[in-house]
């Protein structure tokens, strides 16, 4: 039982004024805070340095806890997998069968692709990583999906660089500090990635749902062409993410597109590479004949 508060300051003018002043400060500060929040939504870069500085404080501790315990990954995944184990098992069996079939088809296509590329004498686009690091920790109490990357400006990391794991795309660098940087994960609600279907190059947009899944929407709304098991890769459209990085696999159809699951789970990935952003400068710098040729595989099926 909490003691009743003595809110009445009595006859003392000083006590009355100080109580009143506390409320004035509180209300003014609250309003200013909310305005600041709206401002920092509109201009996320302006306040990023403040947050980067605070993350520099926690990063050493995160490094230690990570090295001691390893990554406690996907607690939420484990719980939801336990709940839906039966249906998941059925779905996975179906996916496995589907994937085997696709694997055979893909290996044939890869061989064909290799021969065609040899014919065209196209060199593999040089997509050397700027640096490699690992994800230390992430925000887990708010709806924003930000992860902390173990490297920063010391290794040439700058905002806007794509980040990928061995299995696929992880996200992009939002802001870089001296020794850590923040990665906006693929599953964030505000992270939109232009993708295409690996099979036929059907263009689409992937938006995070905030709970680990992705929403896939086609650009032509006439019909819904997605099937469970479709693999989506980055298309290179829009110029941030280089083409042909695996992004997601379609889990089920929805009325306005499809629900997909990222191929690279940031909670399970060990090391990540930070790539050069896919800007015209970098494309020209790459040893490809010409920019149109470099982007040709992205646009055509």
């Amino acid at each position, binding site marked *: *039982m*909490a003691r*009743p*508060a*003595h*809110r009445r300051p009595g006859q003392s003018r000083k006590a009355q004024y100080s109580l009143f002043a*506390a*409320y004035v*400060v*509180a209300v003014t*500060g*609250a*309003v*200013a*805070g*909310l305005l*600041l*929040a*709206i401002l*920092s*939504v509109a201009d*996320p870069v302006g*306040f990023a340095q*403040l*947050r980067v500085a*605070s*993350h520099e*404080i*926690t990063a050493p*501790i*995160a490094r230690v*806890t*990570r090295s001691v315990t*390893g*990554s406690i*990954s*996907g*607690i*939420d995944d484990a719980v939801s997998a336990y709940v839906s184990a039966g249906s998941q098992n059925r779905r996975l069996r179906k996916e496995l069968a589907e994937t085997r079939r696709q694997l055979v088809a893909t290996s044939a296509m890869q061989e064909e692709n290799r021969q065609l590329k040899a014919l065209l004498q196209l060199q593999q686009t040089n997509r050397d990583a700027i640096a490699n690091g690992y*994800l*230390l*920790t*992430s*925000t*887990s*109490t*708010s*709806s*924003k*999906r930000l992860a*902390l990357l173990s490297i920063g400006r010391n290794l040439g990391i700058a905002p806007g660089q794509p980040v990928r794991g061995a299995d696929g795309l992880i996200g992009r660098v939002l802001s870089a500090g001296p020794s850590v940087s923040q990665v906006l994960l693929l*599953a964030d*609600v*505000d992270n939109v990635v232009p993708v295409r279907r690996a099979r036929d190059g059907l263009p689409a947009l992937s938006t995070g*749902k*905030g*709970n*680990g899944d992705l929403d896939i929407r086609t650009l032509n709304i006439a019909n819904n062409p997605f099937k469970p098991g479709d693999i989506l890769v980055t298309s290179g459209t829009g110029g941030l993410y280089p083409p042909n990085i695996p992004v997601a696999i379609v889990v089920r159809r929805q009325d306005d597109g499809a629900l997909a699951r990222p191929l690279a789970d*940031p*909670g399970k990935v060990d090391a990540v590479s930070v790539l050069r952003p896919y800007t015209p400068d970098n494309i020209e710098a790459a040893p490809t004949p010409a920019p149109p040729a470099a982007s040709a595989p992205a646009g055509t099926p």
Partner: protein
Amino acid sequence: MNQKGPRLGEPPSLWRIRLVPVASVMIASALPLMLPLIANSPVLPPLGLLFFLCWQLLRTEMWPVWVGLPLGLWDDLFSGAPIGTAVGLWTLASIAIHYASQRIYWRGFYHDWAIAALLVAAVQALAALITHPHADTGRVLGLVVPQIILSALLVPLFLRLTGQIDNFRLRRR
């Protein structure tokens, strides 16, 4: 006055009385970014907010009503929400607690639980809406519902924890 050391039964130092609650909220706010946990959804309850509310429910007069301004700013640095969100929402929450403690003269355990659960739900929902202004409202709210339910169920535990820390804070030597 004995300058050598503390005497038996003497109340704890003012530093300890003042700093322990503030430190507990600050550590709880920063803790999620020290764990090697990479979450795909908001899985952890807002630890800092829960301690903040529990301290105010337990000791309504301990802090001035504007204490949410600095503590909220600290939480914003670590939560990932746009800076200023918790500054505003936490302060409004503490105004709400002060108002409730005037209205409900003898607050009981269930009052405290209900107030904390309501405030956590409101703060987390509004923070999510501020964070994603362009996204679909229903979807954003659906994102934080599991977290809100978890937090509401954990409020008694956090009240207990706060009580324990309060005992430590006021323990006589």
